[in-house]
């Protein structure tokens, strides 16, 4: 098992600052990640999809060791990640790389593209010559569809467009040939043509090098092409997970169904169904009782407001809904 996550949680406390010393404000507890379990084998791509603010980036930061969980277990190749980092940080970073969600905040403005992409190699002290470093950077940039790579080596981030920055972020994560890549919305600013080339590349790398990839995205259209497995998050929890095909064919959680129904279609002659969930997006500091989705759920019954649903499953397909797999709930449509 490349990655084994058990019941992971991360809670932030807000308003704990100065004013609170005088009892002026109530600290709010944000349950950003609230009991997530995931498993990833080498050679697998796991898609992580969910509402804005549901905890995907927080989970990602914990998986690559940038933040510590509040509770839960987190094993990489069978070892506790926190221990791994303590004993050999450099080695851990060689094996685990992240592509950050924000391509504007995550590239050092003072460094050229060549410096940015070769920096992880230099940090690893692999004893590469200048020419070798440059070649590795060019290869990684080409892989990330920054072509011709030579045109960009001496540029600074501010000279690049949004999509070009994203490709530099991908190149930087690929250059060390890690075992696990956690990519947070890596291609959200790329047009379709480049997007598919990168998706194909990532998929190929995963299979050829037998690495693991966690692909966080809001773009459901890209999911079937790259993901083997899928986990749908809602307010800090995985509410549905399983093989990508199964979920696309037979989503059982009402939130997943709504998400699938809401994707815009590029064909003006095809009308999509509108999701019939509405209502304010809940606050992670005030998570509803019972099923956390119940205030917005079109299928909610009285018990949903009081009882937290246990996980139900059919084979590898799992969902946290009282009625998961029960009845074939018709695809929800907005009235």
């Amino acid at each position, binding site marked *: 098992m490349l990655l084994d996550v058990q019941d992971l949680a991360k809670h932030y406390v807000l308003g704990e600052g100065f004013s609170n010393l005088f009892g002026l404000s109530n600290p709010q507890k944000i349950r950003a990640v609230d009991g997530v379990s995931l498993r990833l084998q080498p050679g697998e791509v796991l898609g992580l999809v969910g509402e804005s603010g549901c905890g995907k980036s927080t989970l990602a930061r914990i998986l690559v060791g940038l933040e510590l969980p509040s509770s839960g277990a987190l094993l990489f190749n069978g070892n506790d990640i926190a221990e791994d980092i303590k004993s050999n940080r450099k080695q851990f970073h060689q094996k685990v790389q992240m592509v950050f969600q924000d391509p504007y905040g995550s590239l050092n403005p003072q460094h050229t593209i060549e410096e940015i992409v070769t920096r992880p190699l230099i940090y690893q002290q692999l004893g590469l010559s200048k020419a070798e470093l440059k070649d590795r950077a060019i290869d990684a940039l080409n892989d990330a569809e920054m072509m011709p790579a030579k045109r960009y080596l001496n540029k600074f981030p501010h000279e690049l467009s949004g999509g070009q920055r994203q490709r530099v972020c991908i190149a930087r994560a690929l250059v060390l040939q890690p075992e696990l890549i956690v990519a947070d919305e890596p291609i959200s600013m790329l047009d379709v043509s480049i997007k598919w080339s990168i998706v194909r590349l990532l998929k190929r790398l995963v299979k050829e090098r037998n690495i693991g990839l966690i692909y966080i995205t809001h773009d459901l259209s890209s999911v079937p092409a790259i993901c083997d497995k899928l986990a749908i998050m809602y307010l800090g929890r995985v509410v549905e997970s399983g093989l990508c095909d199964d979920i696309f064919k037979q989503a059982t959680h009402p939130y997943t169904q709504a998400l699938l129904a809401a*994707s815009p279609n590029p064909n*003006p002659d095809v009308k999509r169904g509108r999701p019939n969930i509405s209502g*304010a*997006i809940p606050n992670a500091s005030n998570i509803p009782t019972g099923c956390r989705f119940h205030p917005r759920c079109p299928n909610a019954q009285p018990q949903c407001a009081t009882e937290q649903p246990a996980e139900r499953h059919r084979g590898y397909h799992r969902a946290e809904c009282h009625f998961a797999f029960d009845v074939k709930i018709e695809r929800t449509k907005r009235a």
Partner: protein
Amino acid sequence: MANNQKEILLEIKNLDAHYNVDGQPVSALQDVNFSIQKGERVGLVGESGCGKSTLLKAIMGVLAPNAQITRGAIKLHEGDLLQASPEQRRQSRWNDIAMITQSALNALNPVHKIGDQIIEAIQSHRDVDRQQARTRATELFELVGVPPQRLDDFPHQFSGGMRQRAVIAMALALSPEIVLADEPTTALDVIVQDQIFERLDLLQKEQAFSMILVTHDLALVVESCSRIIVMYAGMIVETGPTHEVVRRPFHPYTAGLRYAIPDPSTKYEPISIPGAPPDLSQQINGCRFAPRCPLATSKCELEMPPLVSSLASDAARQTRCHHADQMDQSRDRFHDQSFWQTAKTTS
């Protein structure tokens, strides 16, 4: 445009711009012409690096110091913004024209509470007290679907999509006449995106503000913009009513963009456009798409095609292609990857 009853709000005329890189000009915008009516929402699409953000920044007046506009006019209500004084431009920024930058995830000041930043923006342009400004900020947070209790958070406490929504809120704060939105929903799930557009629709009807929406997501343009502008390598290559352009593209690049999207309602496999955009530090006389275009002829390599009406029956449809008249016969071939491979760069 089609119904010329409507009042034109913004007009871009013959705009050329370049970036100075190592003392050399690198073309960024060339011969850009279009106009936006009051209350209209226009989608701007095109390959990564084609100049979409540059165009918005030029309109907003926030181009990078190494950028230079060498020709043209940007008219807001007849007045040319390029001739306005820096003070006039500063006044109109946010008040008349607001921008949601592509770097929205990174746009907020990390050391101030988000609510304070919005309140300050409102107070610096409007004569209102703090309480009134706070009420407005609360309304705006509700509009974009962030719980107003979180106005007192710092940016690092927000998720990517929450920061993006805070920036959308900020852009709407002063009820501008036109909003320039650069990939405003890259960090939003489809449901939130849907809700925001639903509310924007209402707001746009009430206040009749205009919007240019830059996005890589053609489906979003199809659903939310009446008109589309397609750019390639710094130039507008096609424009017209969105549904018509998407159903019946007249520019080979538009066809490529459209047919690269998997569409379960057709039998076609998605294609990809081989090759890369041209190096704009070099002078290009012909069509900028010619090296990747399967229809290209020697004329295309030598002569820049003009942006002209592509349908005699509809003046609103314009295309920049010497062979637009062949598209009706050859459109289906653009679904075929092997047809794309016949272009010059690949053969």
